[in-house]
């Protein structure tokens, strides 16, 4: 019995360590990248403690972590303390859980039997079921801290996450339909040799929808309404300070990793990349490199785009993303059948047609929703 326990520990503990250190690195990366976008320098003073070596500020995440530990943990008098404490933990657990089921073949896990259990058949379903918990945690935080702004933040979060769950799932359905199995490892293997799903037009449309919906799921840039600084102070974590705030922070970043990991397995071919033949362990490096590419994209978006309003957010999910993803499933279905005849010309024709249909409907829906929002011309008086 204990043997199995040790095997599971060997599999999970390095995973936790790697992703925790990646979390620290990402906070530093985000602050440096955002700073450079804004023509600042970003943290460059904190290096190895009590020496002047600054290592480009790499010590900053450690410094933040320690600071968060010693910050006073204020709980408002009116808050009901149990849920106030439970919310950050509940925000963290689903994100951490999902990390184990990403098709990351660490070299040392090849031989261990129980670890194969992690690569369970219904991985994609499991993934969406668990990340649904995050909405609950956010609303619990909003309600428990008994503050008008957090209540507003909490309600916004529920509305946003629920309505962006559907385009997320629908765009994953296409890949599952194409591969025919829900097992993450099988999906990753189906894309070896560079025929990633993102290169096909329906795959690319699905990837764009999946990426935008994942931004909304993790409350990142254009959709960070639940924590809108300028309107409702800090949304659901207004009343959090000290380590609980750090937990929320950690939860958000690990959720970013988890959902980018899924995007990589579904659309960008998991650990597939050049030079795998002679060094199989490279697949882990490729996997994490692709995750960081997506995170860099998220940071870039955060540095550029302003925030949507609540009703526009809802309108965008229900009136633009949903119809497009349903149509995408249709187009993918036809394309799949057309490809069965595997003759070159038919595949090219189906690709061109599907590309035209998808782009046509996308810009049609866009005109529909935009109303009269156009840049305007102005008159000049002498």
């Amino acid at each position, binding site marked *: 019995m204990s043997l199995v326990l040790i095997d599971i520990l060997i599999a999970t503990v390095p995973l936790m360590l790697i992703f925790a250190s990646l979390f620290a690195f990402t906070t530093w990366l985000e602050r440096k990248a955002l700073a*450079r976008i804004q023509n*600042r320098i970003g943290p*460059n003073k904190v290096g190895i403690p009590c020496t002047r070596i600054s290592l480009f500020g790499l010590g900053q995440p450690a410094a933040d972590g320690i600071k968060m530990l010693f910050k006073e943990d204020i709980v408002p008098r009116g808050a009901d303390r149990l849920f106030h404490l439970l919310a950050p933990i509940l925000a963290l657990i689903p994100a951490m859980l999902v990390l184990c089921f990403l098709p990351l073949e660490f070299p040392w896990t090849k031989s261990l039997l129980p670890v194969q259990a992690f690569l369970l058949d219904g991985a994609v379903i499991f993934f969406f079921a668990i990340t649904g918990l995050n909405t609950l945690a956010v609303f619990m935080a909003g309600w428990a801290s008994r503050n008008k702004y957090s209540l507003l933040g909490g309600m916004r979060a529920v509305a946003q996450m629920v309505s962006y769950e559907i385009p997320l799932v629908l765009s994953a359905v296409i890949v599952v339909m194409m591969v025919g199995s829900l097992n993450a490892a099988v999906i990753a293997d189906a894309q070896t040799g560079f025929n990633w799903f993102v290169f096909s037009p329906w795959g690319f449309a699905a990837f764009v929808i999946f990426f935008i919906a994942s931004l909304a799921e993790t409350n990142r840039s254009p959709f960070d309404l639940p924590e809108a600084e300028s309107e409702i102070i800090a949304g659901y974590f207004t009343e959090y300070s000290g380590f609980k705030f750090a937990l929320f922070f950690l939860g958000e970043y690990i959720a970013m990793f988890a959902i980018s990991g899924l995007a990589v397995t579904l659309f960008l071919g998991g650990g597939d990349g050049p030079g795998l033949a002679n060094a199989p362990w490279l697949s882990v490096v490729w996997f994490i490199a692709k995750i960081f590419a997506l995170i860099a994209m998220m940071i*870039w978006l955060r540095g*550029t785009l302003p925030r949507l309003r609540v009703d526009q957010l809802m309108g965008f999910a229900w009136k633009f993303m949903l119809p497009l993803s349903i149509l995408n499933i249709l187009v993918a279905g036809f394309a799949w059948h057309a490809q069965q005849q595997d003759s070159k010309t038919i595949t090219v024709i189906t690709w061109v047609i599907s590309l035209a249909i998808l782009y046509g409907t996308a*810009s049609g829906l*866009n005109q529909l929703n935009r109303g009269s929002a156009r840049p305007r011309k102005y008159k000049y008086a002498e």
Partner: protein
Amino acid sequence: MSILGGGIFKGMAVTLRNFVGSYINKKERLTTNDYSWRPDGDLPQGIGDYPKEEGEQLSDTTTVTNYSRNFPMLLHDGGEPMDTVRCVACQICERECPPQCIYIEKDYDENGKYIKRPAVFDIDVSVCMSCQICVEVCPFDAIVMNSQFELSTPDRFGGLLVRRDDLLKSNDYYHQIHPEEAAARDQKMAVEKAAKEAKKKAAEEKARAAAEKKAAEAAKGDAE
């Protein structure tokens, strides 16, 4: 807009250009200078420790410009400060100071005669807003603006009340920090002094001429 989401892509192109620009042309993009990157590794003076000599600039963004003003200082023309102090304690600056942060007491010698010197001249640096009104209204060019800004003290009252002796600075220190302005001010004072002498001389001649005329009349009077 032609393609879907064109505006957003244009915006992202701008941020990308800024991101790359902050590495390439630092002078245009990067206003804050990053010292820890210095290849030779040694940080210039001022970041973390204080400039060794007077007037050395902290970092090239806080260049001390020629008109920069921080808190006032009293001028004296060299030598022992209290004999050559220019201020005559006329209290015009105390009246005109907008936030009322100057406090002057006249100096009297032993038998109570007002000698043209301030006994007490305090400036409450926590209240002073360095607006330079006192410099403009002072008829004797006795008070000018200093540009030394390392004045932090732990004590809120005593420390920030600068007494007369700390305020007194020599004229050549003034020439050192504000060369142009000091030269212009000295030149103006020289012209005024010359004009005053000329007027005094003219007054003396007139008095002497009047005295001679009177003497001549007296001589003519007793001649008849």
